[in-house]
Structures are given as C-alpha cells and as structure tokens.
C-alpha cells in the first residue's frame, strides 16, 4: 500500500520525460545516420562530434541545443524520430580556458543551413552570441556550403541578403579571438564566415573554399574547373592568401588551432597569457655574429635568425606560404607573447610586394588588437619595383601597411638587421610610441639604397665623365662611407647599435618593461580615418 509520501513521489516523477530527453539526445548522437557517417569516414573525414572531441580538452564539451532538429511524430503525437539540425555547438575548454565552438554536420544534407527559431551557428548564431557576450574565443569548424535554392520553396519567399547578417561576426573581430578551420568544401555563407576570422586554417586535399563552386562557375563563365583547382589549399592559401595556413590532416588542424589560441588573450580586455620561460633571457647565440653575409648580394636564412633570438620552440608562423617576402609569426620573448615581422632576403631581397604588404597589414592589426608587442627584424630594400608590381598596386598596399603601423598603439621594436630603406623601412618603426630602433653592425639605411640612387641623382655628372661607370662607382664609394650605422648612432638617429648576440637580451628587457603600459591600455581599439 502506498503511503501518502510514495504516492506523492510517483505523481511527481518526471522519468518518462527524462527518458524522452535521453532518446532525443541519442538521436542527435546518430548525426545523419550510420550510412551517411560511414560515407563521411570513407572520405577520410571525421564527424563534427569527433572533431570537437579531438580539438578540446577531454570531457570539457558542454553541448547547447542538442535537441534541435526536425521531429517526426506518430498518429498519437508521439515522437518517432528526429533529424538533428546540421550544426553542433557549445562551450568547451582549450588548455583550460573556455571557448565557444561549433561546426556544420556534413552528414545531414551536407551541412546546409537549418531554420529554427534561433540560429545555432554561422553568422548571427547562438555560438557567436556566446563568444561575444562572455568574451571568450570563437572556434568555427566549417564544413558546409550555406544556403540552398531549395529553401525558397520551404519558406515561400526569397530571403533578402543579410537577414542573418555578419554584423555580430564583425563585432567579434574587435573583441575576441576568432579562429576558423575549413574542413570540407565551403562556399557561400560558411566561406564568408571563415574569412571573418583572425586565423584561418584548412586541410590540404580535403578542404576547398570559394565564393561559389564549380557548377556556378561553369554556368556563369563557361569555365570547367575542379573544386580543388578552384579553391584547394594551393590556390586559397599559397596563391591567394584567402586562408592563412594549410595543414596535412585534421589532427594537424586541431594542433594549429590550439597553438594559435595559446598566444591569444581571451579577449581584448585581457593580456595574452605569459608562460614560464626556461630559456635564459640573456642567452647569446654565437651564430648570430656570422649569420649575415658581409657580401651585400648574398641572402641568409631569416627564419633561422628568428629562431635564435626568440624563446626556443616558440615560433608559430602565420601565412608561411603566402607573401613570402615577409615572415609573420607569433612567438615569445621571456615568456611574453610577441608578434615578429621579418623581411625575408631570400625572396626579392625582402622587398615588399603586394602580397607581403597585405600579410604585414593583417598581422600588425592582429597584434595591435590583442595587445601583442611587435618586433620588426628589418631587412627591406623598399617596396617591390617594376611594372608588374605597379600594376598590382604595390604602392597602395604598401602604404596601407605603413598606415596601419602608424595607427597602431601597441609597443613596437625595430631591429635593423641589414637594409632599412624608404617608406617600407619607415613602416617598421614605432612612431606613436617609444620609437626604439636598434641596429646590427650590418645595418644600412636611407631614403633609397645608394646603388640605385646614385645613377638618378648624379645622372649629368656621371654622363659627362669620360668613364661614366668609374665615376658612378666613385660616387657610390664616397657616399657609402657616410652610410656607416655608427655615424647615425652618434647623432642618436638610431637609439643603439648592438652586438647581434645581445639582441635577445635587449628585446626581452624592453618587452618585460612594456607590460605596465600594456596592462593599463587594455580594451578595444577604435580607429578613425580612411585606410588608403
């Protein structure tokens, strides 16, 4: 016989509903069903749930919106099955710090968009709101091609562009780190969503990204092209720089995301995380004394130079295969995060071409936004010259890079390794700040390199000489004597000349000393004016 107490317990038992909840969650776990998942695996791809599990700290994923989807009910109104919404998202941790993350489920209708009362992912979705409201990084695992013309039939009307707009995505760019990984074929909205990120990465061979895919291209232009040729990593990463880094497989993709975020603060109101540093800040590398050839025409390995100066093993290069005349990398000095921008003498003698300029512009803005001091390792003869360079608008892109450097307020350090010429050279200095420029004994600078300038400036004198070649060489030698960096140092036109082996120690001291300024100037950076 039931006591009044047990009767009360049974009457108030919610087990049937909790069972239904469990069943519905089970439906979500099945994704697009065994067959679709098997097909996805055959293509060498993991499912969105496997991807999330591989990326985040073990057991840290708290899913949100697991019940979303399209339910099918029997005649008595009981749930028969649910086709999940093709997007999985929630809160997780990476290296112990919270992140908002989500991604399309390709096994359900190829990850095309889904319309519930509220959007889960993509632009304007819950996942963006979570990152924005809680000021935590956003990670998009993109594997979908966005809207489809079939939605017009379902809705009964055509959707105006921007009904799910990018305004929140844009706001995120000034507040929290946004990372997007392209892990399948991305077109339309998801492709655009990927670009509105601070860091993008794609998987070689299995990911493509474009505004529109091969069928649309063929219809519009009559061009027959494979999706790999149109938007594979060679085009999107190496040629166009649409996506920053390409990686060999999904595991490398997750490693890259984790690595990138390890340099980033949670938001612009915080400092990037400092880590304990067991690499002595006063480490002197003998190799630095001989790394720059005395012969000015001979290039050297700037990446090796960078590695000798920064904390051991701390280099993470962004866009390594695009705009190769400049190297941009996140790194650490004495455990503090820095951005390093180094000219690469192996490519056009380090001259800034249009791609290098775009790369440098983005990287300066990234560092400025997240309060990451910038170290310039300078060896730049100027902007790239020639008809191709002019046709590509190198001057405009180059000046845009100079412009963003002059708007940036994060501390910048100029280390002149060899050449520092012209406007490109000026764009490596901290004009709004301390403007600390240190030079190696191999440094040289001016408004333009002497050998190029002499022929123009002394044209008549050279032409009228009985041996023009000899006269040109004489003038060059005469002017070069004045070009010694020590003479500029006498005039305090550079703040210091250092033994190359002292570079690390010098930079570590100043980066550490700048922490007070960084701590007291946190927050979003609003910039006015019109970029050229």
């Amino acid at each position, binding site marked *: 016989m039931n006591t009044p107490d047990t009767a009360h317990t049974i009457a108030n038992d919610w087990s049937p509903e909790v069972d239904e909840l469990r069943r519905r969650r089970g439906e979500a776990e099945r994704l697009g069903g065994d067959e679709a998942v098997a097909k996805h695996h055959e293509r060498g791809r993991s499912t969105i749930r496997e991807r999330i599990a591989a990326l985040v700290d073990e057991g840290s994923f708290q899913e949100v919106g697991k019940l979303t989807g399209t339910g099918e009910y029997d005649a008595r109104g009981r749930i028969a099955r649910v086709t999940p919404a093709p997007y999985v998202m929630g809160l997780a941790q990476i290296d112990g710090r919270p992140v908002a993350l989500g991604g399309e489920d390709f096994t359900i209708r190829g990850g095309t968009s889904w319309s519930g009362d509220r959007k889960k992912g993509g632009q304007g979705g819950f996942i963006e709101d979570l990152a924005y409201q809680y000021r935590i990084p956003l990670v998009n695992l993109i594997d979908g091609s966005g809207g489809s013309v079939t939605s017009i039939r379902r809705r009964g009307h055509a959707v105006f562009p921007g009904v799910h707009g990018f305004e929140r995505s844009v706001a995120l760019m000034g507040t929290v780190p946004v990372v997007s990984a392209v892990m399948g074929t991305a077109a339309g909205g998801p492709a655009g969503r990927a670009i509105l990120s601070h860091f993008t990465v794609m998987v070689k061979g299995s990911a493509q990204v474009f505004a529109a895919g091969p069928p649309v291209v063929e219809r519009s232009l009559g061009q027959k092209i494979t999706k790999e040729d149109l938007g594979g990593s060679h085009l999107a990463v190496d040629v166009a720089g649409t996506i920053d880094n390409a990686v060999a497989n999904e595991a490398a993709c997750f490693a890259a995301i984790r690595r990138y975020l390890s340099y980033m603060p949670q938001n612009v109101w915080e400092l990037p995380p400092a880590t304990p540093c067991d690499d002595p800040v006063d480490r002197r590398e003998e190799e630095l004394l001989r790394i720059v050839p005395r012969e000015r025409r001979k*290039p050297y390995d700037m990446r090796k130079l960078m590695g000798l100066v920064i904390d051991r093993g701390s280099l993470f290069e962004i866009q390594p295969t695009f705009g*190769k005349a400049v190297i941009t990398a996140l790194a650490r000095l004495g455990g503090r995060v820095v951005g390093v921008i180094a000219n690469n*003498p*192996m*490519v*056009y003698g380090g001259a800034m071409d249009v791609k290098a300029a775009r790369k440098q512009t983005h990287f300066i803005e990234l560092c400025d936004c997240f309060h990451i001091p910038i170290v310039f390792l300078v060896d730049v*003869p100027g902007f*790239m010259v020639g008809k191709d360079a002019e046709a590509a608008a190198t001057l405009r892109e180059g000046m845009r890079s100079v412009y963003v450097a002059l708007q940036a307020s994060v501390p910048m350090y100029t280390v002149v390794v060899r050449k520092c010429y012209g406007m490109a050279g000026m764009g490596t200095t901290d004009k709004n700040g301390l403007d600390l420029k240190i030079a190696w004994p191999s440094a040289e600078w001016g408004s333009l390199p002497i050998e190029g300038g002499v022929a123009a400036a002394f044209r008549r004198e050279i032409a009228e000489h009985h041996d023009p070649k000899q006269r040109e060489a004489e003038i060059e030698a005469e002017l070069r004597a004045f070009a010694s960096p020590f003479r500029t140092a006498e005039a305090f036109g550079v703040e210091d000349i250092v033994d190359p082996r002292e570079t690390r120690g010098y930079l570590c001291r100043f980066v550490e000393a700048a922490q007070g300024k960084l701590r007291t100037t946190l927050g979003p950076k609003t910039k006015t004016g019109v970029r050229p």
Partner: protein
Amino acid sequence: MPRYEAKTDVTGSVWKIVTSVGQAIEAGDTIMIVESMKMEVPVIAEEGGTIAAFLVTEGMSVAEGDAVAVVER
C-alpha cells in the same frame, strides 16, 4: 623514376648554375642562383635526388614560380 621540378621563388635572371646534370643533391642544396633585386637568390632543392635536366640557361630571364630544373628522386 619519380621526378619533381625545382622552381624559382622569384622573378629575375639566372646568374649561375652551380650544379650539373647527373649530379646527386640533397634536400637544402643550392641548385642554381637567380639574380633578383640585386640579390643572389638560391633555388633550393626541396628533396634530394639527381639533377636530370636544366630548363634554363645562365642569363635567361625567369618568372616567379617557373620550373628551372628537373630532379629525379
């Protein structure tokens, strides 16, 4: 035998070919030197192998991304 083409990263002119056909090379070796922006820019072997052929001669103009040599692995 698998082959690959060594490419120049820069536009310029071939200044000096420092290897010869039939020569064994290792990854990281300089195959030839291209002069660009008054700098001697090496074309570096991505992988080791044997030089099978040169696709350029000294003094010839080359454009960024041009294949300049064939290497057999």
